[in-house]
């Protein structure tokens, strides 16, 4: 027999001004199973809570209904109070008399009647409630970081330095990402590689970090604290343990004309190659698509010249299985290529290049050793035009968002050009200058005022080639849209930052969501910027949206802290408001018939198949089983279930039907 206590709160006058609280308490006292009912000025105050606690102890209450404010406000408070008095916290329910009644209705009988109804439905619900215990899940204290750019490097180092193991995987042969391609960085103009490479080395040498380059995530199973990742280590055609990185093979390789990815196609590389001199690890891989041996079956020059006999032509991809507790996604971004812009020549003019290509031209380690020379004929451009928002902020191009980094790197590019080409003329066409950030606006002003870069506010409608010059047709909107034609030697497009190719498939492997531009989605745009909707998976850097280096690093450290928080406990505690499939005595075992409609309904892939076996190990029945680590408690499966075999704790069929029935039946 239930012994329910009802506690009606006046909330000062917030409730009692329109609701007759005494009458509510009095009426509730008459309900079946209610053994104690009282109204009080402030239920959430210490004396109010003591009132509840002592009633639980003295009257031996089995359930509590607090009729006060919204449960979204004080449910944790009252549940905690109940727990302190020895009552299971999930035996406490709240009737929302304030937000849903006293504040939205005028004083009167109808309002008090509604309050009485609201109390009654919760009394009926709490009678059907069950004691529930928080769920505990173990945690594997190893993190998987996907992507070895600056965000992945920072996240790995932070997690590793907090004492946890990290597996860092990188798709390319070396870590470093886009930051390793950059020349100088805004707003300080310090050399990108000089600040990055020490961190790359630290990653390689850190005892807590296992680094797999040339590797990709194959598949992921499991849930927060208990993921199982399969990592494909693509064959490098090389025994890394024996290779000393001497470089004999890369100098002797006869295939020398492959466009270098690191140099954005402006330089060449060999078929066996190290992407750049400071690569980590500094050991080559064979690009099997371009290697003569793999195409024609002969060559093997690298094998012949290798002093340590490290080349392995028959090496195959290997799959590494790893158990990890948390994942940081730091796969970065890419930029749109000029062939996206018919009006800017559709990629047919070699001297119309992307910002990333300009970085390589300006970089001391680049194909021109830091001299600004145009790709077509190697001449130093006397006039250069930079076009901001090439694709970005242009709904007609399908990229309505701002790529965020371009305003700053264009100012940097123009500045670098002016520093390197004395007497050169540089022009920037822009829509707005978005230089929000510490020392950013000052940096742009420096480009304009000290270095004499010509900023023209307007768009460029067309670029065409004439007499060896690139004619840039634009408008100056600050001079009444006056047409501006510039006969430039080189044009740099600040093409939009876009999601990496394959980001969609990766998101699907991780069961996380992505936005309409294929960037990964954060769980909340403001309050959960590094979390994803999947517990235990976090985001860092430009895989979430275009970002500059400081932002990526900050986000990576944020994600690392989230991982460290997760790893600070041996077990995870979760609210037990999750779905369960009923189990019954043999021979039925469960009313579940195994239609698995629930599996397709579940947004979290939380429902698995469970085989029920007899003593000899024969499968007698296959039923659904909810993984308590993955279930988030939405209850969609419950409404789907044809046999009503799956139910959600805290919102069971019995509880919800009681509410509906209590609501309308006259007492």
């Amino acid at each position, binding site marked *: 027999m239930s012994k329910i206590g009802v506690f009606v709160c006046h909330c000062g006058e917030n409730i009692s001004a329109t609701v007759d609280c005494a009458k509510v308490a009095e009426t509730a006292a008459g309900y079946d199973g209610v053994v104690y009912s009282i109204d009080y000025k402030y239920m959430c105050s210490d004396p109010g809570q003591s009132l509840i606690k002592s009633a639980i102890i003295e009257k031996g209450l089995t359930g509590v209904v607090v009729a006060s404010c919204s449960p979204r406000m004080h449910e944790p408070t009252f549940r905690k109070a109940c727990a302190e008095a020895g009552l299971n916290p999930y035996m406490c329910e709240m009737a929302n008399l304030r937000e849903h009644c006293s504040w939205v209705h005028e004083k009167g009988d109808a309002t008090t009647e509604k309050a009485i109804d609201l109390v009654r439905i919760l009394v009926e619900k709490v009678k059907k409630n069950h004691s529930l215990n928080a769920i505990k899940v173990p945690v594997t204290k190893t993190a998987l970081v996907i992507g070895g750019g600056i965000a992945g490097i920072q996240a790995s180092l932070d997690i590793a330095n907090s004492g946890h193991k990290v597996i860092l995987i990188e798709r390319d042969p070396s870590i470093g990402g886009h930051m390793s391609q950059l020349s100088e960085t805004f707003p300080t103009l310090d050399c990108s590689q000089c600040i990055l490479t020490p961190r790359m080395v630290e990653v390689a040498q850190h005892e807590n970090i296992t680094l797999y380059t040339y590797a990709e995530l194959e598949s992921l199973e499991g849930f927060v604290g208990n993921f199982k990742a399969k990592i494909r280590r693509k064959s490098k055609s090389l025994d890394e343990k024996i290779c000393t990185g001497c470089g004999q093979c890369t100098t002797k390789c006869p295939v020398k004309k492959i466009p270098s990815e690191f140099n954005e196609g402006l330089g060449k590389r060999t078929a066996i190659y190290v992407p750049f001199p400071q690569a980590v690890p500094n050991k080559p891989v064979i690009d099997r698509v371009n290697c003569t041996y793999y195409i024609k079956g002969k060559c093997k020059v690298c094998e012949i010249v290798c002093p340590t006999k490290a080349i392995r032509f028959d090496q195959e991809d290997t799959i590494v299985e790893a158990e990890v507790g948390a994942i940081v996604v730091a796969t970065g971004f890419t930029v749109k290529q000029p062939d996206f*812009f*018919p*009006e800017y020549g*559709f990629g047919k003019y070699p001297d119309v290049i992307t910002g990333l290509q300009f970085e390589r031209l300006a970089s001391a380690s680049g194909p021109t050793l830091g001299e600004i020379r145009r790709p077509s004929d190697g001449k130093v451009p006397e006039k250069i035009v930079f076009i901001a928002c090439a694709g970005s902020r242009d709904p*007609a191009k399908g990229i309505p968002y701002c790529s965020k980094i371009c305003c700053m790197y264009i100012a940097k590019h123009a500045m670098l050009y002016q520093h390197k080409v004395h007497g050169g003329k540089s022009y920037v066409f822009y829509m707005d200058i978005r230089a929000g950030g510490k020392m950013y606006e000052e940096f742009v002003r420096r480009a304009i005022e000290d270095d004499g870069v010509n900023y023209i506010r307007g768009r460029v409608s*067309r670029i*065409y*080639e*004439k007499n060896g010059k690139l004619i840039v047709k634009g408008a100056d909107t600050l001079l009444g849209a006056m047409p501006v034609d510039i006969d430039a030697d080189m044009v740099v497009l600040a093409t939009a930052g876009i999601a990496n190719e394959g980001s969609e498939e990766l998101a699907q492997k991780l069961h996380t969501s992505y936005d309409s531009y294929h960037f990964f989605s954060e769980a909340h745009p403001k309050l959960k910027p590094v979390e994803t909707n999947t517990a235990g998976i976090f985001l860092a850097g430009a895989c979430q949206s275009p970002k500059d280096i400081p932002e990526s690093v900050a986000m990576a450290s944020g994600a690392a802290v989230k991982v460290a928080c997760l790893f600070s406990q041996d077990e995870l505690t979760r609210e037990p408001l999750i779905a369960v499939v009923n189990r019954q005595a043999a021979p039925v075992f469960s009313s579940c018939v195994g239609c698995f409609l629930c599996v397709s309904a579940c947004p979290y892939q939380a429902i698995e198949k469970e085989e029920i076996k007899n003593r000899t190990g024969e499968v007698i029945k296959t039923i659904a089983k909810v993984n308590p680590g993955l279930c988030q408690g939405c209850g969609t499966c419950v409404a789907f279930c044809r046999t009503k075999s799956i139910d959600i704790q805290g919102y069971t069929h019995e509880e919800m039907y009681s509410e509906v029935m209590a609501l309308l039946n006259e007492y």
Partner: protein
Amino acid sequence: MTLGLYPGCSLKGSSREYTESVLAVAQACGIELVEIEDWNCCGATAAHNLNKELSLALPARILSLAEKQGMKEVVVPCAACYSRLTVTNHELAVHPELKQTITKGNGLDYKGSVEILNIIQMLDKYITPNLEGRIVKPFEHKVACYYGCLLVRPHEILKFDREEDPQSMDELMLKAGATPIDWAFKTECCGAGLSVSRTSSVGRLSGEILKDAADRGAEAVIVACPMCQSNLDMRREAINSYLGEKIDIPVLYVTQVLGLALGIDRKTLGLQRHFVAVNI
């Protein structure tokens, strides 16, 4: 095969050779073009800048007449008319309230069943599939295909060709035996709207276009719009005085070129009507 035809004012006046060549090519390929009876001005240039409802009401009447006269597809050779009619068709389809106001005001009844074809769409759909063996005199010249501004814009509504670097006319010219050149001014403005009021602007704008075509070795400029044609052809004096040089490459309609390739005689195609003599 019968299609509707909306000529518009230019094709009845300054660009008679366009009408002549369209009809000649159509006839040669067994297509009858029937003019919409009692058609009116489409309202290009002036109306859509002054009064949106009027600018839609004028083409709406044309569309409604075409529908009433049983026309499923209407060929609109003039690029400006094509733009107005297509935009109106679109606006009426997506804004039912607007359609209500406009059709009520005009006492019209328009269901929206009429499909508009510009000249290139018409040629692509009904002529080029039957060209095989009919090209008797391939037009073996280097040509600059000039699309102008109205044929491909606004792209969201017209959904015709690539808006920044259109290709359809180039492909058509290849089929007629010509060699289209790669040039820079395919969709630049010729200054059409200012032809009468500020002829000097036309000289400058059209001058740039012709100069680039000439510099790149074009022997003819090919157009599909009477405005483009008249500016590049009739205003040649203003153009040459702006450029300070004499450019004498002729400006032909796409249908005239196709007509020549099909072996239709020059007079039927109206080649004698041009200001700049057509000597190729």
